[in-house]
C-alpha cells in the first residue's frame, strides 16, 4: 500500500508541476485507460462528454473503430465532433490512438502500459500529441487504475505548450455488468472527483457491449463545473 501511495504522489506531483505552466483550454475529464490489450479484439466506440459551467456547455463526441493488430498492441481511429459557439454540432477533428500492453496481467507487482494519441483539428493545422503511462494494480476485488499524460499542443492558431493530466479510477468489480468506481481528474487548472461505473454484457463469443460512465464535479474553484462522460463499445 505504501508503494501505491508513493506512486500516486509522484503522479500528482508531476501533474501539478505542469499545471502551473499551462492555461485551461480543453476538457480534462475523459476515458480512464486500462493497460490491457486482448488479441484479435475489434470494436466500435462512441464516447460522449458534456461539461457544464455557469457560462457555457461544452459537448464533445467521438466515434471510433479499434483493432488489436498484435497480441499486445491495438490501434484505434476516431472522428471527433464538438458543439461550436453557434450551438451547431460539427466534425472538428480526427485522432489516431495506439495502446501498448507492456506487462502481462498479474505477472508483476502491477500492470503497465502506454497510450499514444495524435489529434488533428479538421479545418486548421492544429495538433495535439499525448503520451500516457498506464498503471493498474489489483487489490482483491478492487482495481486501482492510474493514467499520467504528457501532452504537447501546437499549430497555426494555438499557442505551443506542454500540458499534463492525471486520471485515477478505483473500481469495485462487483458484477460484470455493474462495477462502481470513484474517479479523480487533474490537469489544466482543474481538479475533479466523482462517481463512475463500468460494465460488460456478453452477447455471444467475442461479441460484447461495454459501457463506462462518470459524473465529475470540479472542486478546485467555486462555481459550477460538472462533467458527464459516457462511452459505449461494441466488441466483436
Amino acid at each position: 500500500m505504501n508503494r501505491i501511495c508513493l506512486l500516486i504522489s509522484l503522479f500528482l506531483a508531476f501533474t501539478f508541476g505542469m499545471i502551473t505552466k499551462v492555461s485551461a483550454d480543453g476538457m480534462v475529464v475523459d476515458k480512464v485507460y486500462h493497460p490491457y490489450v486482448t488479441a484479435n479484439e475489434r470494436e466500435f466506440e462512441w464516447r460522449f462528454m458534456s461539461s457544464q459551467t455557469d457560462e457555457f456547455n461544452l459537448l464533445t463526441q467521438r466515434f471510433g473503430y479499434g483493432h488489436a493488430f498484435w497480441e499486445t498492441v491495438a490501434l484505434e481511429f476516431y472522428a471527433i465532433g464538438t458543439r461550436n459557439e453557434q450551438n451547431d454540432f460539427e466534425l472538428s477533428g480526427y485522432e489516431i490512438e495506439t495502446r501498448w500492453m507492456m506487462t502481462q496481467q498479474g505477472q508483476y507487482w502491477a500492470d503497465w502500459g502506454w497510450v499514444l494519441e495524435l489529434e488533428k483539428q479538421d479545418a486548421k493545422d492544429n495538433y495535439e500529441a499525448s503520451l500516457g503511462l498506464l498503471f493498474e494494480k489489483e487489490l482483491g476485488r478492487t482495481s486501482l487504475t492510474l493514467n499520467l499524460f504528457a501532452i504537447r499542443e501546437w499549430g497555426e492558431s494555438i499557442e505551443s505548450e506542454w500540458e499534463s493530466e492525471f486520471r485515477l479510477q478505483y473500481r469495485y468489480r462487483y458484477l460484470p455488468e455493474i462495477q462502481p468506481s470513484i474517479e479523480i481528474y487533474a490537469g489544466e487548472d482543474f481538479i475533479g472527483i466523482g462517481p463512475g461505473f463500468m460494465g460488460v454484457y456478453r452477447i455471444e463469443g467475442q461479441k460484447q457491449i461495454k459501457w463506462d460512465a462518470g459524473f465529475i464535479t470540479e472542486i478546485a474553484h467555486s462555481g459550477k463545473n460538472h462533467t458527464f462522460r459516457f462511452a459505449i463499445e461494441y466488441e466483436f
Partner: protein
Amino acid sequence: MFARPALAETPIYRLVLENHVFSPSKLRIPPNTKVKIIIENKDETAEEFDSFDLNRERVIFAQREASIFIGPLPIGRYEFFGEYHPNSARGYVIVEEESL
C-alpha cells in the same frame, strides 16, 4: 493438476483445451500464492480464456500455448470459461489448503 517448481518460485499449473473442453475442469491451487497457468490449446481454432472472478482474459491461438498469472487468492472457487465455446469450455480454479 500437477504443480512443479518454476522460475522465481512461481508454481506452474497446466490446463489443456481439447475438443473445446478444459482439462482438468477443476484446477486446485494453494491460497495466497501467485501461480502461473499454462494453457495448451490442442484445437484447430483459437479460444479466449475468460474469467470475471479471476479478472483475466487471454486469447490462446490454435495449436499454441499461452500463460496467465493469477493470485495471490483467498480460499474459494473461481469460475472460468472459453469465450468462443462457453457451453463446453468451462471450469473452476479451486483455491484450497489441500492443494499445497
